[in-house]
């Protein structure tokens, strides 16, 4: 087990290096001279070519690409992501502050996807070709085709504007109490609309896995020896059907992050998505780099955890290479 984890970890190191290199080079080819960001606009007309050259030397921008990449990597290793061009704040502080809002949103959506997706999948998997199966599987196809910005808008329109069940965005009632209940009340609709795709996908995979497991010989054996159907379904079938679904659930993070960008925009949620979108429209390169790196590391981490979790529950994978 230890050897397996170590091997998976080592595979990720070159990928992580390439990720940092890609992020750094992307910003390198961006139009515009970074040195201009160090000169305040009202001073621009008094700045001579020599001043700019001196500034370039002082900030180290005159050095070759690879030298700057190495220095940047060195600072990155110490957790230093630099300063935002726009917010005059450290990038890591900005990211931590916004991550605090994004994690509950993505976490809640992920949890809804796991709980509702898997239970619905088991439910219809045990009732193949029933009315339930046709309607829910059909709905899941719709759910898989709905992008987050449409599910977000429609959710906001139906459940907030028309029905008035939920607030129309924001993270808490303005001027109101900051209780946990109020926060949860604001969280339900954004998280649910973000979870639509996850629920649909997990349900489809769980249904398929159930159908496959139910055809196995050991299920027939369990039935033949007179085991109660409930035990056969939940102990024998569901536990084995969960195995392949672990991978799907673990690899859903990139989709969730992408969806969060839209959901946060629609529900005025001050999380990573809105931080990133502001950085993109303001060409705030240090923040763009920081957010890209954080997301990439999160995705790599999630992939690694999925591999480890899978190998922990299914020892067969550790022996093949």
């Amino acid at each position, binding site marked *: 087990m230890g050897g397996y984890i170590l091997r998976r970890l080592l595979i990720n190191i070159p990928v992580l290096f390439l*990720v940092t290199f890609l992020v750094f080079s992307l910003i390198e080819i961006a139009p515009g001279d970074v040195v201009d960001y160090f000169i305040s606009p009202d001073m621009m007309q008094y700045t001579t070519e020599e001043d700019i050259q001196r500034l370039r030397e002082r900030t180290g921008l005159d050095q070759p690409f690879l030298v700057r990449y190495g220095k940047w990597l060195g600072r990155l290793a110490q957790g230093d992501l630099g300063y935002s061009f726009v917010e005059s704040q450290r990038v890591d502080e900005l990211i931590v502050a916004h991550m605090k809002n994004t994690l509950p949103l993505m976490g809640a959506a992920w949890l809804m996807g796991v709980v509702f997706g898997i239970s619905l999948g088991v439910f219809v998997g045990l009732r193949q070709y029933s009315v339930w199966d046709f309607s829910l599987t059909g709905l899941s*196809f719709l759910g898989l*085709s709905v992008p987050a*910005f*449409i599910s977000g*808008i429609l959710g906001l329109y139906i459940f907030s504007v028309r029905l008035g069940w939920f607030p*129309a965005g924001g993270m808490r009632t303005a001027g109101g109490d900051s209780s946990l209940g109020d926060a949860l009340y604001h969280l339900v609709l954004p998280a649910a609309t973000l979870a639509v795709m996850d629920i649909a996908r997990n349900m489809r995979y769980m249904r398929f896995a159930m159908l496959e497991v139910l055809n196995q010989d050991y299920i027939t054996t369990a039935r033949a020896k007179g085991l109660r159907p409930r035990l056969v379904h939940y102990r024998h079938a569901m536990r084995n059907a969960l195995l392949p679904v672990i991978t799907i659930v673990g690899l859903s993070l990139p989709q969730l992050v992408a969806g969060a960008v839209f959901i946060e925009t629609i529900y005025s949620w001050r999380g990573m998505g809105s931080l*990133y979108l502001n950085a993109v429209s303001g060409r705030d390169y240090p923040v763009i780099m920081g957010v*890209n790196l954080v997301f990439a590391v999160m995705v790599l981490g999630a992939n690694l955890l999925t591999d480890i979790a899978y190998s922990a529950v299914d020892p067969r994978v550790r022996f093949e290479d």
Partner: protein
Amino acid sequence: MSEQMKPLTNNAAQVVQIEAKARIETPTQIAWRRFKRHRLALISLIVLVIIMVMAAAAPLFTRYDPNEMSLRDRALSPNGEHWFGTDNLGRDMWTRTIYGGRISLQVGLAAALISTVIGVILGAVSGYYGRLIDMVIMRITDVVMTFPPIIIMLTVAAIAGTGLTNVILIIGGLRWPATTRLVRGQYLSLKNQEFVLAARTMGLPDWIIIMRHILPNVMAPLMANVTFAVSAAILAEAGLSFLGMGIPLPTPTWGNIMENARSLTILQDKPWMWMPAAIATLTTVLCINFVGDGLRDALDPQQIM
């Protein structure tokens, strides 16, 4: 029933001929016959054709110009003159929706074509040659896939700029890893089969084996992948434009029409300004996905004819 029982003619040679004609179907005919059995896929294909015709021949379906503003007709709700109402600048929403389909479908098809060409080339080379080149290509694929799709697209859009050509290039240039992995897997398993060995023994150059001998065998899973790539590209364009980082106004696309809904007053009181675009996007994507599903089943050689 009885017609089938007794042959139309007693001439033996003619019977053989008729039977041969009846039995030999091209792979396309087989696929089409099996596709037609999928009722939902067939209906989706028809709806899709209607949407594509409306988009392609948009000027025939409206009297208005998509960008013509009429300040007297601002924010009208749907009526006999303006079927889908008008927006805050007095532009006809029905016209903007069908013209928007033009751009959205164009981006979807062009981006899917680009990503498929890149994906097939890289996947074929990677799977066929293996070793170092495979390792390099696969690591690059891993790196691109490490970034959540919309995040990396927004980053490149921020650097390279927006607009129709850039959006097509960005979406097409970043969606290939999925295709590469699929094609690579197929080449990995096919390259060890006898027909490839036979082609090699005949001394055929690698590129002919890759293109003429192996590629046709990859077409079945690839076709379904292409349809899903089209719907993914349509959604990516809509997403980018919705966030204001895609195709800039006044050119209408379904994405930047939906951007209207980011204003709460429009979302609340003027649903005609965003709902047609949302429904059009959803219908198109749903239909493409159903067609893709039908194609996958129809082209699956594992299935009994």
